[in-house]
């Protein structure tokens, strides 16, 4: 049977790359006696896949992984079983069964929500409430937000305005915009949150929050220094006929 696991990744685990997180889960499942199905063939590997790898340094409340299981308990038991063999900084906070026909989550990913905060012992002009409010209003009113996209081979000017679905400087307005019910605990833990945004994600347009932040800094006339900001992923969504549905509920059985 197919299942989708939602987990958080915080603290020092921000420095573990997604391939190592994959290996970490493989071992955790063996420790917890969870029977994951294996692929057929000469070198069988466990059937597990991530929705969208999180960049090194970013934290998250909502990472998703699809797995195929030989057998399973009810979701609450599964969550407890897995968490009993995990460290404190990668925790499972959701488990749902999927329809057998469910598409892999990575292929239906459409958007992600992020919080951007100023790290402890760092400062940014964007942390000034009035400053950011005014700049953000003007920034988002632009018809076009053009950035220079550099690849190994070429440089290209791209308009990212259309890929910013929602953006706000406070959680209250942001919740109104997205209509999503967030787990507030990690939001409250963020040292100095300054920005909330919902951005296009997935195989069509994958807009990284760093890019939006850099564009806002440039627009506001302040220097962008990536080490000042902590970026935290809040949720991932799938596109269901034009409507965004949290990944944990998409094609749920």
């Amino acid at each position, binding site marked *: 049977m197919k299942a989708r696991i939602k987990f958080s990744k*915080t*603290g*020092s*685990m*921000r*420095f*573990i*790359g997604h391939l*190592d997180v994959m*290996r*970490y889960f*493989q*071992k*955790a*499942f*063996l*420790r917890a006696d969870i029977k994951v199905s*294996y692929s057929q063939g*000469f*070198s*069988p590997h466990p059937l597990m896949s991530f929705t969208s790898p999180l960049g*090194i*340094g970013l934290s998250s409340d909502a990472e998703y992984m699809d797995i195929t299981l030989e057998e399973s308990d009810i979701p609450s038991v599964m969550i407890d079983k897995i968490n009993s*063999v995990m*460290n404190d*900084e990668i925790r499972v906070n959701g488990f749902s069964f999927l329809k057998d026909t469910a598409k892999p989550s990575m292929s239906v990913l459409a958007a992600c929500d992020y919080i951007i905060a100023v*790290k402890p012992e760092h400062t940014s002009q964007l942390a000034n409430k009035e400053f950011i409010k005014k700049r953000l209003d003007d920034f988002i009113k632009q018809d076009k937000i053009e950035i220079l996209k550099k690849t190994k081979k070429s440089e290209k000017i791209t308009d990212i305005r259309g890929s910013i679905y929602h953006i706000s400087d406070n959680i209250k307005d942001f919740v109104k915009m997205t209509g999503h019910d967030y787990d507030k605990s990690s939001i409250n833990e963020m040292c100095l949150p300054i920005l909330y945004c919902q951005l296009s994600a997935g195989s069509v347009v994958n807009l990284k929050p760093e890019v939006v932040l850099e564009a806002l800094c440039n627009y506001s006339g302040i220097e962008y220094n990536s*080490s000042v900001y*902590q970026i935290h992923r809040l949720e991932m969504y799938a596109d269901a006929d034009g409507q965004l549905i949290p990944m944990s509920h998409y094609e749920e059985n």
Partner: protein
Amino acid sequence: MRKLALSDEILLSIEKPARYIGGEINMVVKNPKDVAIRFCMCFPDVYEIGMSHLGIQILYDMFNKRDDIYCERVYSPWPDLDSIMRRDNIPLFALESQQPVKDFDFLGITLQYEMCYTNILQILDLSGIALNAKDRTNADPFVIGGGPCAYNPEPIADFFDMFYIGEGETAYYKLMDKYKEWKSSEKDRLDFLKMAAAIPGIYVPQFYNVSYNEDGTLKEFNPTVYEAAKTVVKQVELDMSETYYPQKPLVPYIKATQDRVVLEIQRGCIRGCRFCQAGMIYRPIRPRSLDFLKKHAKTMLKATGYNEITLSSLSSSDYKELPELVYWLMDEFKDKKINIALPSLRIDAFALDVMSKIQDVRKSSLTFAPEAGTQRMRNVINKGLSEEEILNGAMDAFLGGWNRVKLYFMLGLPGETYDDVEGIAILSDKIAREYYTIPKEKRNGRVNIVTSTSIFVPKPFTPFQWAPMDTKEEAAKKRDFLLSKVREQLNARSIKYNCHDEDVSELEGVFARGDRKLCSVIRQAYENGCMFDAWTEYFCYDKWIDAFKDKNVDMEFYIRREREEDEIFPWDFIDIGVTKEFMFKEYLNSKAEIVTPNCREKCAGCGAAKFNCGVCVEKRN
């Protein structure tokens, strides 16, 4: 949330930040304030290498069993972080608490190979601990060394407060108790060193006076305080089934070199190969009981989530109950997709049966370690493996579907002639010829033979400790000769030849049988910028040569001489059980090409029987 010693900014700017954050599965968490002794265990090489070492896992578990001790870990920061730590004055920290190593009571460094010696200085330097033991104060930890290179600690004697000679399971608790006694007494540093020196197995270099003859050899080596013994006796774990072994080994987040459960099935070896130090210093062979191994295999796999287990020993085929153990493992874990790795296995019917069941024959290769190319030379080194056994083993394997063979040899063995060198090429070719005697339709494509040579380095506590080592020019000449001979063989196209770097081997040779005069050279090399010498990309031969010149020390003295029978060696103060007389007799046997039977065939009277354990008390058939 754990507070890390390095800022996000630094962690994001270096390679593999996971090397420095700790927090691994099964890491022991204690409050440093609640313990009497903080012990920092160090492997002086990069994290992925250090995390693969079984010895540290055993001691980590053993120390942390005690509530009054918190044992943490540290590894060598890779050069990218090293330069940042120097630039920003960041003190080296332990992974668990992320607190400075300098604040610990002990820094224990495992000495696994000579080429890590400059890394020891890096560790001390980054920690802010004085490099020379004599310059340390009560504000510094006691620096203690152990492991195979501690059996000749003299080249690094200046940097250590003490060495522990023997197996870690036995004497550390005693040392810790003495330390607590000393700490509450408020006596000075030297007093603790004296207390330590009185514990069997502990060697405190500064309590010994060394004098030299005019030719540079040792004249006298004498203790200067009452507590220091004239001879330090190796400490041996007598019962391998009633001792410490981790139930919950640490599991790193990044892939370590040895990324699996390691089960040490026995310690020591019965074979008595004359070049092998491990075969002498770990005598006598002591197997662990089948019950112990089954129980630990189960618990460790469950506690780590690894999908592979490796059976570790110097010669697994000499473990009497190996078939029972392996078939049990295969049966017990057959539903869990657990791989079983069996290194150090002689290729015989059992080995091939097991291998065909646990490995994908098409992908795996067979490994033989004849060590020498001719039977004459194998008799010289007492490697009891005949050409017939190799060819039969290879043939059985070929019929079983294998077509890849790895062969390991040494160049520069004592008394080696060019015929012996050519023998390596000939033996490689014979194995290939064996393959082509199989009818074409039964063959599995072409045979693929990889022949590797390393350069023989004479080690202390072996019968070859008297022998001269080849110069690097000779080694290079033999290598080129061998390559030309490989190319002359009928199946030259099926044989790939790899060789080892002569520059590194030469230095290994110097340090292996070195004395205290080398301490200043190693320190100078470190100051010249040498570090990570075991890594080809960082090894810098010229800087080493400069250091030897600077300190006026002649490398030739250590590697070129054939030593006299009665020469006093820098390591003679250590008693490993095996006597110097026995080793010299074996040296003479090697010259006479006489083979000595293994411990289970016939006791050779090496001296290890004084420990009264293992094979020495086993019933012989």
